[in-house]
């Protein structure tokens, strides 16, 4: 049980780090999660 706290801490910090990097370089987690064939057609890109 004690392992979960440092694991979650690292996980949380990684999320924060990803947010910082992704915001600077314009990465999109949503785009990363979409299947490749949909990505290439642009059909699943974000809509406002």
């Amino acid at each position, binding site marked *: *049980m004690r392992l*979960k*706290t440092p694991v*979650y*801490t690292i*996980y*949380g*910090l990684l*999320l*924060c780090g*990803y*947010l*910082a990097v*992704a*915001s*600077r*370089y*314009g*990465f*999109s*987690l*949503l*785009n990363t999660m979409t299947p490749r064939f949909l990505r*290439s*057609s*642009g*059909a699943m*890109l*974000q*809509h*406002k």
Partner: protein
Amino acid sequence: MELMGVQAQLPPDISPLQIGTQGSYEGRPFTLIGRVRMGYREGSWNEWCADFGNGLWGWVAEAQGFYMVSFEVEPPADLPGMAELLERESRPGGPPPLVDYRLHQGREALKVGRSMQIAGTRYAVRDTKQTEILGSEGSLPFTAVPGRAAISGDLGGPGRAFANIEYSNDGIRLFTGHYCTFEELAFRDLRPLPGWTTKDVETTRREADALNCPTCGAALNLRAAGLSMVAHCVGCGSLVDTSHPAVQLVATASIRQQGFKPVIPIGTRGTLKGVEYECIGYLRRRDNYGYSWDEFLLFNPFAGFRWLVMYQGHWSFIEMLLEEPPQFFGMPVIDRQEFRPFSVGRAEVVYVLGEFYWQVRHGERTEVADFIAPPRVLSSEKYPELAEVTWSAGEYMTGKEVHAAFRLPGAVPEPMGLYLNQPNPHLEKGRTLKWLLPLLAGVFLLISLIAAATRSNEAAFHSGFAMSQVGTNGAIVSEAFELKGSHAQAVEFSLQAGLNNSWLETGIDLVNVDTGQVEREIVVGVDFYSGNDDGPWEEGSQQRSVIVPAVPPGEYRLLIEPSMDPPNPQLPFFIGIRRDVMVWSNVWLGFIGLMAYPIYRWMRLSSFETARWAMSDFSPSAGADDDDDDDE
């Protein structure tokens, strides 16, 4: 003060106190100089005379591991019987009242539950009994005549206030003080206790000290001599009244009970919370639903009595409270912690083994109520024939801890199901989340705000087009534009068209001018419909945007392939591009990711509590079921 010597045969007891023992009460040192053994129908206790010096003396009563320090004070004039006593004293020479009349006065005045105001403190009578002096020793401030009868009432008040009122041939006497613990009184020069403070076990005892079973004659080896009111004979299994030297048979052993071996054998010693206890008694009780549990009475001559209660492998370590806990909207409160009501019911004794400090019987019934603040539990017990309620507080223990403490052989049985005060394992696992989650969420939010604030969000391109501009290649080629920057960035493409009841979709290729390669393929469309049926309505949007992630800086053109229905070659549409925009989906998805584990932990915690309270007589579902029945 008279030196009484030793009057009458004092029964053996395991009190750690002796004449000469010193202690301290509220900072005032005292020495025990005398003792009176008081007996009543169901037992006996010690009253120690304490010399505080400078002519001040008080009393230290010792019963069931509790200590009551009190000093004699003038009874208030409004105490029942006092007016008559004072009037009689003012007319000396008349005959004294009969003892029976005085005892009757006491019984009437000291009804259990009666409230009295004494010296500004409100007391309630907790216990009343007819007493007699069994014997005495040492120096005492009065002549302790063996057999002197009295009605003695113990009263309790807030803050562990204690009072005792005694009606006897000597008049009406009042003593006030406090309930104290052994530790608080800081005793020293204690009596050596064989098996406890000395390794020697008493091998020679005076014949008059030995207690024998009236059924089989076997010696009754009392582990809490002087405190045990009933004991089980290991020879024949009979239940014997040991409250007086003349032991009496209470009940013969049932065939079913003989040979029964409790999990913690009688006589086993173990250390719990740093104190060594001996298991001296075992009870099995059953509630009105047929569920049964085991109770083990533990004894330490200095700490007093404690209990271990076991149900399906779940244990609780219980100690009795000196006073009823204060209530807050019907919930008892201890150490500023509220205890929620969990169950009410009746408990019946079905097995008895060993010794007990009250006259326990097979079939004895009590009304019990449990209140919980896991891992703690508060229980109240009420005997139907008494107005008194006893309270005890306990804490959950695992089978492993108990087996290790008492060095019990064999494997530890796995606990079954949930128990009322079992600590929620998910509460412990998620304890650090209380500060970790806000910390991480705060860092996450801070990074989001800084990221949003540092984005350029600069317009890089904006131009209007029409379907009529489509060339032979089926596409419109835009002017070149530059996406500035030193690194890849998110780029927002927006399409706007003033259409109505139609749609427009544009397939846009972002072509790098330098390399001629298509960097991205984007599809963005708008649709807008409106009408007037039962009122005006509209649907869709004339403007839409998409965010394209991680586009490298450079010079680009757009290859636009529009399609529209119904076609309108002259309808203008506008494409705008903003560079280095904030990708907010990263924030939402990242936050969901951050909350995933805490939400999982919270669901497990809630699920455990739901299962716990499903067993309660006060569960919300129990109330809802009742409401459903009412609706029918």
